[in-house]
């Protein structure tokens, strides 16, 4: 016997009712207005169980029997339950809930930590080089229009750097023959920086050229930028952020604006972590190639330190590049797109040690 309410088809009119199984083939529903309904159990459509919310059983004529006695429905009509009952089983057994919790936490962590970077790398490298050109198209024009000014370097200076780059550095990049490297010089109001576009274009700012005290220092940074291009980091970024956005959409789903704020911070931290990974990867690319070309990786620490010092001494620039602020071990490191200069210099120095020993390759332990 199951207590519940019976509703006419599509109507709010309802009566208290008692459901009974007569002989496993027929059922009977007694309404409190004296009416009795009979029918085949076979023809009933029993709704899925969800927590302890009212259960709906639809009769052959479209009328409805609703009851809160979920356990009795499960017991009496167990042959009628749909496969979906499996989900309710998961939800009610603490063992499965714990399994779900552990799997979810572990999976989410590994997915963001290793899964997305790995998959992005694979996809980025499976795509043709044309994709890189597509991403980079118009970027330089855009930067020229809104950010850069014409370089104040002389043609001779530019050509000297270009020739050196072509003869000494480009041959080192043997990984991807489809890349054509092009050097550009621009003025960016006293910001020392070097940028790489996925198409193979590398942009050096005047201030950066000015701060380089030796050819090796400039080469170290150029190799770092080449590392970004060879590893297709821009393309990886596009793929990574697509993954992150879709994953966030699926998990948070239809939440309110409130949760969005926390999620926004989370996605920012995740994408900053990926970006820091890229910087380290480009650094390593530079160091390894410096060793093979017999250059001292120490040059990288020198130019990094000089740039950091310059930025800190010139307040007008910290406005442009707040992330290079030298706040070691602060909470803001998790939001920074670059690893701290201190950490990068440490790795450069390890490679410099290998160089001093005359090694052509260097094995170091990277810590996160």
């Amino acid at each position: 016997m199951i207590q519940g309410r019976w509703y006419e088809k599509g109507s709010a009119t309802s009566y208290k009712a008692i459901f009974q199984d007569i002989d496993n083939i027929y059922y009977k529903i007694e309404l409190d207005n004296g009416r009795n309904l009979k029918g085949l159990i076979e023809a009933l459509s029993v709704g899925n169980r969800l927590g302890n919310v009212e259960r709906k059983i639809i009769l052959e004529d479209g009328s409805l029997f609703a009851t809160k006695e979920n356990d009795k429905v499960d017991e009496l009509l167990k042959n009628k339950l749909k496969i979906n009952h499996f989900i309710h089983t998961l939800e009610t057994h603490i063992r499965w809930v714990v399994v779900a919790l552990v799997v979810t936490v572990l999976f989410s962590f590994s997915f963001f930590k290793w899964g997305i970077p790995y998959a992005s790398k694979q996809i980025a490298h499976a795509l043709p080089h044309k994709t890189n050109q597509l991403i980079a198209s118009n970027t330089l024009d855009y930067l020229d229009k809104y950010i850069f000014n014409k370089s104040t370097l002389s043609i001779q200076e530019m050509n000297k750097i270009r020739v050196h780059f072509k003869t000494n550095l480009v041959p080192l990049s043997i990984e991807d023959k489809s890349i054509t490297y092009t050097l550009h010089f621009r003025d960016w109001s006293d910001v020392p920086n070097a940028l790489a576009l996925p198409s193979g274009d590398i942009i050096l700012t005047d201030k950066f050229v000015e701060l380089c005290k030796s050819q090796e220092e400039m080469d170290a940074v150029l190799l770092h930028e080449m590392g970004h291009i060879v590893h297709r980091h821009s393309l990886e970024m596009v793929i990574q952020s697509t993954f992150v956005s879709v994953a966030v959409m699926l998990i948070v789903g239809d939440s309110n604006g409130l949760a969005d704020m926390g999620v926004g911070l989370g996605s920012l931290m995740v994408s900053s972590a990926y970006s820091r990974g890229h910087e380290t990867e480009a650094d390593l690319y530079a160091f390894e190639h410096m060793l093979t070309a017999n250059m001292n990786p120490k040059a990288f620490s020198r130019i990094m330190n000089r740039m950091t010092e310059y930025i800190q001494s010139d307040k007008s620039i910290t406005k442009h590049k707040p992330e290079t602020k030298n706040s070691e071990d602060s909470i803001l490191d998790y939001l920074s797109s670059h690893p701290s200069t201190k950490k990068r210099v440490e790795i450069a120095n390890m490679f410099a040690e290998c160089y001093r020993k005359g090694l052509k390759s260097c094995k170091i332990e990277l810590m996160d």
Partner: protein
Amino acid sequence: MKALCFKGSGSEYFKIWIVNILLIIVTLGLYYPWAKVRNHRYFYANTILEERNFEYHATGKQLFLGFLVAMVLFITYIVISKILPIGGFMIMGILFVAIPWLIWRSLKFSLKMTSFSNVRFGFKGTLRQAYINFFVFPFLFILALYGVPMGVAVGVPMMLGEEGVAPWLQAILPLAIIISIGFAFYLYGFMKKKNTSYRLNGTRYGQGIFETNLEVKKFLFILLKTIGMSILVIGVFVLLIGSVVYTTIGLEGVLEMKYNMNNPQAGHTGLGLMMMIYISAYLGFIFSSMLIMAYSITRQRSYIYQNTSLDKKISFASTLKAKSLAWVMVTNFIVILLTLGLAFPWTKVRMARLIVENTLVDTEAGFYEYITQKEKEESSLGEQIGDAFDVDVGIGL
């Protein structure tokens, strides 16, 4: 008047939520529509008035196709916006044009899939009205708030040249800007009234018709009070932070820190403390905006409910207080942060309970005579796209 009651519990919903996520993971996202149905059903079916409950009728199968299309569009949007910044803007433009259609489809689908006491809701608003409400009005509003003042401030002096600006024109320009912003202010209230009326007057319960009579004046009044409160809260907030900095670090300390920032050799005394103040200021800002939001939401809700009826027989009321809404918002936010999101189900149930139990319905007339109206099947496409792009439809109670 009787209050609705909410019978869901945080622990029960937690299990449903975590199993949903597990299945989404295992199926690489394909389970999402079914998960959505279970979530919706849980909250609808636990919302009860006099032993009658709401029910969500959409099935995962029904949502699946719309979900796939929405996913493809969403991924295309992200990829394009990352590759070409202009492409992203273009898609945003297309979305802006598509929003009225998405809202219209979403309202039609969601309401049709919702029932109370075995009788389905429905939506009879027209697409034309959706475009007037969610395209024309917002467009005029943005034009009045930003377009005209900016055009006047930048365009007019440019057109006339440096010396061409006559003194009388210089005097009129600020006036034109003020009038335009004032007009935007009025448009806001007008838009609120129109949008709410569109949603509510188009809503059906069986053969029953919802009716709402709203005035622009009242919305403007609430907006004015909200602005006043914002100024007050932010003022108090700035004073508070200022006095904390002044008493703990002092003016000289701040100056010294500024000097030390540029000098890498010097120690960073007080930087830790400054960090703490930064973080608390940031949190404080979030909390004060929640307070202001809660105020605006609860006032509008009370006003709208008071002036809405079903067939002129069944009336509604909202007893939701700004203080309690703000309290639940703030504490939910903190709990979600502290548990890295794991307490999300609990916070969702808590919020649902607060909102549902502060909704009153006059049940004297009874619901006996209401009957579901026959309608053709609706596709879930628009609703799913709206869901993916986070288009706020807001049909919640």
